[in-house]
């Protein structure tokens, strides 16, 4: 953790850094990611620490080989998933889904998961994460 001064100094390049991250990500795939940037900001705390603005959890610096392309929580994981019966689901027959089976079968549309990446779910009483 940086000292107070470090953190203050960090603030000065927070905006250029955020802008840089935005540019990189936009360059990566603008159409994909424009829709994700709702009310999200990035907080840099010296030495690459990132903090989710949503709940204040501080993330470690990117491990070796990793790169930061978006602010934490810029893509909003699904925490309280809602399900509809297959008969009422409006899905294209050709849409690829992730199929998970417990006592019941669950389907997660991949085009939908492209927007959320992670679903924090529960299957047969056991907490699971569906990721894409």
């Amino acid at each position, binding site marked *: 953790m940086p000292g107070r001064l470090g953190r203050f100094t960090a603030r000065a390049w927070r905006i250029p850094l955020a802008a840089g991250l935005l540019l990189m990500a936009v360059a990566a795939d603008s159409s994909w990611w424009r829709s994700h940037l709702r009310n999200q900001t990035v907080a840099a705390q010296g030495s690459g620490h990132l903090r989710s603005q949503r709940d204040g959890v501080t993330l470690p610096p990117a491990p070796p080989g990793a790169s930061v392309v978006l602010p934490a929580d810029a893509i909003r994981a699904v925490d309280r998933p809602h*399900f509809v019966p297959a008969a009422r689901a409006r899905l294209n027959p050709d849409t690829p889904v992730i199929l998970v089976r417990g006592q019941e079968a669950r389907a997660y549309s991949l085009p939908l998961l492209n927007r959320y990446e*992670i679903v924090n779910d529960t299957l047969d009483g056991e*907490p699971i994460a569906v990721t894409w």
Partner: protein
Amino acid sequence: VYRRRIDDRVLTFGVSGMLLHNALLMFDRETGTLWSHLTGEAMAGPLKGRRLPALTSIPQVKWRVVQREFPAALVLSVDGAEDAAADSYAGYRADPQRFGVRPPQRRDERLPGKELVIGARLGATAKAYLTSAIGPDGAVNDTLAGVPVVVARSEAAGASAVYGRELSGKVLEFEPRLVGGMLRDRTTGTTWNLLTGLGQGGPLAGKRLTAVPFVNVYWFAWADYYPDTEIYGRSGVSGGGRR
């Protein structure tokens, strides 16, 4: 798909915005640990080195197949939508020269980067099965970390599967072609559901094959995570071969 309980602690995952080898790093809100969504391994933070237990799932299977085989299935719905129209990755998938957001630092030239593989790992052994070697409607018998496995896919269904093929001490040999979208072992003549591993006709009907977790992935990403990976199906040759 992973269990998200570690030592009786339930974790809630978010998207960190970091990529490792072009795959999403998740973070958990409880400890701030960073986890690879491709391997389930904690890469940095308090739980570094731990691994989330993988749950078997069938990725990329077409809805029409799930709807037919699992009419009681429940479907994720977010903000009133179960599907999304735009496939913003279509251009990316079609381009053989684009390797993720950040091109890998080391490229494993054993295969073209955008070759689609089924990646499976048991113990310390990782293996990439070329989908082209399995065929659009086929199955291959192999051994992964000493465990006899069958790796199969149906392009029409969009479904892939990896199962252990040893049952009650007997090793099953599978036919190289699916029969009506089903696996069939020529050892006993039993047909097996590709999606569930359940024996559906023949002497072993009602028995179930043990599912092995796997991912459908581009070669460049798999090789980046598992540089020592073995390859099945290169030039029609089975087995490994290191760089």
